[in-house]
């Protein structure tokens, strides 16, 4: 157990500029660098610490391994009125995902619904950034990605087989902030287990497994085994549903786009070989104005959100929330105070910055 590290508060725009400077130094072109920096800093501002600037050291590693192509040019492989498939050319996941969700929104304005798949991509940060992007344009947005690194243990299994495969969904209200769900299909993210490990606290039952796939509350074993439960936690509490959702995401992101297998490569029995590196994403947009007149959809969504907020709480000090509320509250706070970054992360970022000779902007 390490000592609690010092924390420094860095403004969101400084984080964004720092990321942009690093990406530019890596050779990423100006536009995609700015887009990726914006998406990552946005996660930090919304309190999604696992998906912000803290990812940059991992991206640096993957760039070193040749998994991220900094000079990539994503291309539309096929396109029709309501669908498109984009090959990301191993680019950073964020710019191609912004491109894909925007394309889905543009198409949905004409056809009511549109779906854009992306293959051959990389980690795209927080899925919720893209679904909220659609909501800002008045669209219902659904964004998913599969994660090639195994973490979720299927119900009845011993070993991890699926990534934490997130689902993000957003819908525009008229008065309220958009409804914005962004959830891993695991009970908890791996980094949450790591936080318990760092603090030395036992992890709650139903979160993680040991190396043999047995439930554990030991934070060290839980962190090292990298086996988390699907949402539901245990079979009795419905883990087969979380597992089913994780598989659904795998199908829509990887199998549908062709990111699940290496093209042409098969095992000894002629079956497709799973790709360890390719990442696929799924972006769906629906234009509610094609079904409801004027502002009816936003007004009805406001009524639903207001109704949920007005539900009598068990504890008056803890009112009933709607998906997105914690992130919006965090955004308001961090826009004032800056984003708290631990010194350990700042040191890792300093190393990244000096490796690529980018300017250090974080003081």
């Amino acid at each position, binding site marked *: 157990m390490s000592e609690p590290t010092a924390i420094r508060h860095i403004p969101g725009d400084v984080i964004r500029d720092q990321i942009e400077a690093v990406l530019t130094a890596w050779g990423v072109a100006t536009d995609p660098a700015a887009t990726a920096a914006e998406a990552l800093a946005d996660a930090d501002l919304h309190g999604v610490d696992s998906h912000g600037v803290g990812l940059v050291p991992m991206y640096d590693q993957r760039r070193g391994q040749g998994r991220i192509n900094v000079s990539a040019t994503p291309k539309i*492989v*096929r396109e*029709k*009125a*309501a*669908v498109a*498939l984009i090959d990301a050319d191993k680019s950073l996941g964020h710019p191609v995902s912004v491109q894909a969700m925007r394309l889905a929104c543009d198409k949905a304005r004409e*056809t*009511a*619904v549109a*779906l854009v798949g992306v293959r051959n991509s990389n980690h795209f940060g927080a899925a919720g950034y893209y679904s909220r992007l659609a909501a800002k344009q008045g669209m*219902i947005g659904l964004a998913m990605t599969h994660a090639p690194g195994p973490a979720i243990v*299927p119900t009845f*299994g*011993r*070993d991890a*087989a699926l990534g934490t495969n997130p689902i993000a*969904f957003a*819908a525009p209200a008229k008065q309220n902030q958009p409804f914005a769900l962004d*959830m891993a299909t695991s*009970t908890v993210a791996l980094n949450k287990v790591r936080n318990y490990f760092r603090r030395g606290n036992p992890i*709650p039952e*139903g979160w993680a497994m040991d190396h043999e796939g047995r439930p554990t509350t030991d934070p060290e074993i839980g962190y090292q085994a990298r086996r988390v439960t699907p*949402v*539901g*936690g245990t079979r009795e*509490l*419905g883990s*087969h*549903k979380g597992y*089913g*959702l994780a*598989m659904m995401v795998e*199908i*829509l992101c990887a*199998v*549908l786009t*062709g990111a*699940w*297998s290496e093209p042409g490569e098969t095992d000894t029995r002629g*079956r*497709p070989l*799973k790709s360890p590196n390719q990442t696929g994403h799924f972006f*769906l947009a*629906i234009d509610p104005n*094609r*079904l*409801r007149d004027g502002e009816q959809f936003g007004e*009805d969504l406001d*009524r*639903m959100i207001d*109704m*949920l907020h007005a*539900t009598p*709480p*068990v*504890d008056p000090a803890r009112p*009933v*929330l709607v*998906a997105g509320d914690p992130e919006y509250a965090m955004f308001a706070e961090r826009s004032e105070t800056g984003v708290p970054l631990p010194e350990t992360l700042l040191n890792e970022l300093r190393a990244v910055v000096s490796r690529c000779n980018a300017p250090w902007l974080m003081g």
Partner: protein
Amino acid sequence: MPTIAVDTIKAQISCVLTAWGMPADHVATTAELMVEADIRGIDSHGIGMLPQYHDRRKDGRIIVPGNIRVVQDMPAMTFIDAGHALGHVPAKMAMQSAIAKAKEMGVAISVVRDSNHFGAAGVYSTMAIKEGLIGICMTGTSQRSIVPPRAREPMYSTNPIAMAAPAQRNPPFNLDMATSTVAVGKLNIYRRAGKEMPVGWALKPDGSPETDAEAAFYATPKRMTPLGGTENGGSHKGYGLAIMVDILCSVLSGSYFGGHDLKTGQPGDFINVGSFFLAIDPAFFRGEPGAFEADMDALIDQMHGIAPLDPAQPVLVPGEPEEAARAERLKNGVPMTETLYGEIKRVAEESGVEFLLE
């Protein structure tokens, strides 16, 4: 427990629906889809629903046959007003329309408003498989039985998500799940068995866990949990998914939310359930025929290849329990509780038709 042949169940449903004045083609569709739920082992959504449909028809909330009409028709979208009909016919129409349009457009949705209970969501999503497509189906519900995290009162119901995708060698992927931790039927099973329920299935009015199945089952309203069960277990995720379902089904179509009119906050004369259907053509994305199905097989094989915790209980893929039930029930019939048996008898008598299950 009596076991009833599938054909007998279908005949019983058909003659009851006919007696209600439903046109022959609607009877055929509805009976087919209801008995399909029984065949798949989804007991709560087959003939077991007939008594509730009967009561709702009597009190005027289900209109037979109902004026089912397309209110909006675009190349990738169909908007259907169910006219308060029983939900199966409009739902089948919606899924078929999404399938036909997705074959042209690559993707298509259908949205249904002012409908009723349509049985099991999975019978619609799996319609896409036969055409080589991915199918998704969701629906809002007419009751309040699920309590949001931190809340004391239920606000919506089991809001299911069903998704199906075709494979080649393996049975299709077929996920059909309520976004609650368990369905009401599960409480009933524990009540009958006199078993204590696990923490995380249901709540007391003060928000603490209810483990007495008798109390949970008879509570008015029912207070069940979103998937995740507890805040520590991630119940905000099950809650978030359920509201996503209600946005796509109820808000997008202008229907009711958990049986309540969003404009007045009150229940109305009708149930006004909304549903959402999505079809995707994998052939557009993969470019070559069979590529999607081959990768589906590889994915399913990978899941089956995971070492099980208990060798006697291998890792399953969604849809396999339903496939097993199908084989069993087509051969041996559908087991039916005495209670349901009695209720169907009442429905047959009140509808003036012969009771066929004897």
